[in-house]
């Protein structure tokens, strides 16, 4: 699933992948963006590392209002994504915006969260699908 509003604001799949897989080394993100991405990663996987020093770094770049907004948003998503995963449902639309059935959506997106650029786009359009199925994904 992707935010249509963020896409209209210029967010690309390449940026999403970079923000998930390579934000620390990337030159595409500001220091503020990098620490927000780190906040999210740590809250889900290593919350014990979010200590006073980490919040002090956040406070150099964000107001308390923005930190609360970020922290609550991240916590909300940590909670809900796992719940939704257990319900085994898929987006109603393909990556190129077509209404699809749950079965078709499952075929397009696969059963593991991964980059749209590595499979879902091709499966939605049929372009390059044979290469993916033959193991090049």
């Amino acid at each position, binding site marked *: 699933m992707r935010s249509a509003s963020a896409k209209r604001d210029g967010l690309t799949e390449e940026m999403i992948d970079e923000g998930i897989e390579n934000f620390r080394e990337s030159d595409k993100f500001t220091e503020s963006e990098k620490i927000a991405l780190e906040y999210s990663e740590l809250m889900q996987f290593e919350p014990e590392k979010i200590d006073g020093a980490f919040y002090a770094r956040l406070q150099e770049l964000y107001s308390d209002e923005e930190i609360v*907004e970020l922290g*609550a948003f991240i916590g909300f998503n940590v*909670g809900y994504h796992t719940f939704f995963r257990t319900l085994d449902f898929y987006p109603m639309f393909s990556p190129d915006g077509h209404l699809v059935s749950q079965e078709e959506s499952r075929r397009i997106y696969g059963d593991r969260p991964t980059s749209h650029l590595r499979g879902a786009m091709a499966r939605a359009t049929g372009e390059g699908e044979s290469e993916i199925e033959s193991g090049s994904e």
Partner: protein
Amino acid sequence: MPFIEPLPEDRIDQAGFGKLLKRSRDIQAPDELFVRILAHAPGYAKALHGAMHMAHAEGNVDHKLKEIIRVQLSRNAEDTYFTNLRSEKAKKEGLTEERIEAGCGDFENDPGFTDAEKWALRYAWLMYREPKKLNAEFYGEGKKHFSEAQIMELGGFIAIHYGMQVFMRTLRAFPMHDPEGNPISQEESEKTYGSSVGGRKK
């Protein structure tokens, strides 16, 4: 003091916060500390507190069962704030510390819980430990005990409360009251409840 300081009440001048603060003082789970921290982002405070309250204290699943689940989840999240709070509403309805401990422990073999209650406790227990086990068969079992509306109520309740527990854990916060209900400082609260989340100090 939490890493994000709670706003003093006289700085919370947004319309509608009186209701949130009163509700927090009445229920105590969460207490007003949570509202005052979230009040830095007023829109978030109202939306999240409203959703948390509805999921926890309203709806068609027993509030006492949801209170046991809330404590069980907060121990998994290792959050010193939510794990030490207790719902005044659940206490008035008869929930005891012994029952909470049983629901956080070996509930599967406890004859004090019905099969429906055991399923709900298992649902919360597995959600953030072994979510792959929450499959069609598991939900099929749940539908023998609960309506789909109740299962969604439980799932949504678990998700929002766990999410906020994970966030609050990082802030190193403690309840504003001791177990007898007396107001205490954050330093005194940490001394009273301890910095681990295994059990509740008397």
